[in-house]
């Protein structure tokens, strides 16, 4: 293997891992508050299609990205309305959100399939990007990759050091107690769910505006689900989300590596890799029942409505 190939692989790993980071960090915040939103795939596709549409219409990728975030947030608002205000089953609501999102995004995007846009280009950070290898791998990305690092740092710090982090954890552990000592449980949960939607919408925008950049039906290819598994893998810890996302990024670009090494394997078989890897990872993590129990937010998935 030559240096160029390795550089390219690492560069692509970071790019591929970025949408997973965005989704998984958002969902992690949401789950920490006790809400399980399985609708990631639907929100992701909505983010992707709406971002793409607005970019085509306005010709400005940043407007598109903003629209993608709003679309993701609107979808998560729908989820919150059902699962939080109307105390619907969170698993069923999440599935509904996914089915709805897949349908709606396909419907909205019908006329946009195959269109081309000028995607978000890389920002080569001055000086840093000139460092050999590391400069290419770490500092020649598009801005969303850098943003994912900033968001990671922010979330890491929030849960480590701040009162806000403490409140989110408290609400996710025991909403009755939180309500009894006067925390606005519903508001905290709404905020967490909306934040998750915003992040997933952003990830969708990244896919259609930078990663590919184009729109096709179902282009998320299960990334929303993989990110959900990633949160479990990470035991609800931000630093492990980063690690996991990049490992998955690596698994997803396996075909690049294998082609680079001269192997000829069917692309359909290689496409199974990230999904199979997800299952293996879940197996390894979840079989340690003790640890998953200690780390899982205790009230995860349980609807709660304060009695007034």
């Amino acid at each position, binding site marked *: 293997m030559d240096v160029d190939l390795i550089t390219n692989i690492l560069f692509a790993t970071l790019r591929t891992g970025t949408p997973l980071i965005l989704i998984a960090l958002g969902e992690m915040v949401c789950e920490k508050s006790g809400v399980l939103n399985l609708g990631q795939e639907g929100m992701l596709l909505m983010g992707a299609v709406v971002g793409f549409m607005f970019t085509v219409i306005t010709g400005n990728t940043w407007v598109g990205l903003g629209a993608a975030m709003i679309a993701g947030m609107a979808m998560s608002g729908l989820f919150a309305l059902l699962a939080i205000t109307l105390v619907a089953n969170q698993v069923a609501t999440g599935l509904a959100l996914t089915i709805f999102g897949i349908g709606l995004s396909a419907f909205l995007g019908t006329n946009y399939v195959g269109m081309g846009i000028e995607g978000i280009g890389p920002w080569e950070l001055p000086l840093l990007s000139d460092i050999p290898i590391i400069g290419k791998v770490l500092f020649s990305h598009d801005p969303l990759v850098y943003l994912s690092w900033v968001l990671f740092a922010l979330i890491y710090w929030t849960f480590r050091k701040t*009162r806000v982090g*403490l*409140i989110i*954890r*408290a609400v996710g*552990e*025991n909403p*009755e*107690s*939180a*309500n*009894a*000592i*006067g*925390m606005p449980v519903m508001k905290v949960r709404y905020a967490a769910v909306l934040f998750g939607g915003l992040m997933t919408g952003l990830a969708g925008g990244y896919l259609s505006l930078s990663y590919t950049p184009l729109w096709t039906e179902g282009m998320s290819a299960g990334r929303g689900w993989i990110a959900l598994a990633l949160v479990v893998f990470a035991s609800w810890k931000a630093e492990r989300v980063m690690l996991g996302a990049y490992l998955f990024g690596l698994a997803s670009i396996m075909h690049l590596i294998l082609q680079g090494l001269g192997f000829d394997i069917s692309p359909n078989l290689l496409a199974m890799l990230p999904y199979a890897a997800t299952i293996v990872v879940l197996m390894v993590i979840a079989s340690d*029942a*003790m640890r998953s*129990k*200690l780390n899982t937010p*205790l009230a995860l998935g349980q609807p709660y409505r304060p*009695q*007034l």
Partner: protein
Amino acid sequence: MKNRLELLGITKRYPGCIANQSIKLSVGEGEIHALLGENGAGKSTLMKIIYGVVKADEGEMIWEGHQVDIQGPSHARQLGIGMVFQHFSLFETLTVAENIALSLPKEKTGSLNELKQKIVDVSQRYGMKLDPDRYVHTLSIGEQQRVEIVRCLLQDLKLLILDEPTSVLTPQEVNKLFETLQQLSAEGCSILFISHKLDEVRALCHNATILRAGKVSGDCDPQQTTTEEIARLMVGDDTPFDKQFTKVEGSTPCLEVNRLTFKSEDPFSTPIRDISFTVRSGEILGIAGVAGNGQEELLRLISGEEQCKSEAVVLNSKPIGKLHPDQRRKLGIGVVPEERLGRGAVPNHSLAQNTLLTGFLSGLSRFGWIHYHKVRELADKIISEFKVKSDGAGAQAKSLSGGNLQKFIIGREILQHPYLLVCSHPTWGVDVGAALVIHEALIRLRDQGGAILVLSEDIEELYKICDRIGAICDGRLSPIHPTDQVSIELLGQWMTGEFDSSSSPAEMQETSYA
């Protein structure tokens, strides 16, 4: 004495019931005021209204001479009201300091290190040792209560509300708590003390308000009023008082637990350490203990929800430690778990279906085919024999009151004629009438030769119905002696784990029978 708090005409309605109706109550500065009442009388609702967790439908609240409309718990705390909940409002995976920080206004906490220092200072001043860095799930129940109290003391406290604070404490801990409360009262802090235990109220409180069925049924000075009078105010004229039951000696061993040691996978559970005891046919054995000391694990090991070494649990000379709950039921074990709704009964299922839940071995199904008419018959029989108030066998379990559901569950287990009945907290949260029905049913089963094991936090109850008594602490079992030979002080010592005398528990148990 000036009034600190005055309630006028407080009314709160819930669908199907009126929790509080025109409640009038006043508490003076430095006064320790008891709020007495049966389970379900509306005490907790009233306290939640004062603390702003629940909003009253009508009535006004006067705080230090001014009418206030409490917006929520943080508003109440600003005014100087603190509350210690019956089910603690603590977060198990956070530390003591983090828990306390969450309930204080941001500007009061300062840095976490400053807060820790304050916690240590306050806890020392009031004699409640507390380590701010420990995780709450590693604390005992008594220590968790201290966290709740210290949390209140860190603010400018003028009124402290305690909801049934002694039900989770050992007798020694209760004395310690009372000292703290008296110290607070002497400093001018008012205290609202909710309880249903008359002797405690008499020992501590200056005044008492008694609630019955959501209304004030009387006010009194507990030191000047007889127990009989207060009890009448609590339960009304038409409810019969408790009965006394005679103590008996059992016959042959029914359940034998031999050197049972167990550690569950659940990180929040208590390990069982080398427990041995025997329950004989025709006796009730009671095990006292503060919640979380291994009662739950012990019950699960006997019921079969957890399995252990085969010989560690023996029923009628047959080792059953490896058997599943249904297999053990077949051999004659009935179980009444602590959680009625959501373990003892399926909330959304009808009473008929809930009869089938544990009754499927007694001829209600054949080759996997359910005979629903038989299920219904048995359900109707339980409902009539145990006076279960419900809309019939088709009613959902969740629509029943706690007491009626408990009567149903106990009836379901007893009507299957078990050799051994294991009950956890048989009358917890149940009104006096239902408690009496339940106690009588247990005594009847005992007199018919059934072996009964009762696990309870309610010491009074254990003294009333048990023939022999012991205590569990941190997964270890005290000696077991005939109830009339165990003083409440001794039982209290056992509950705190002070039972390592020269002889081993097994020997002690034998001598008590010699």
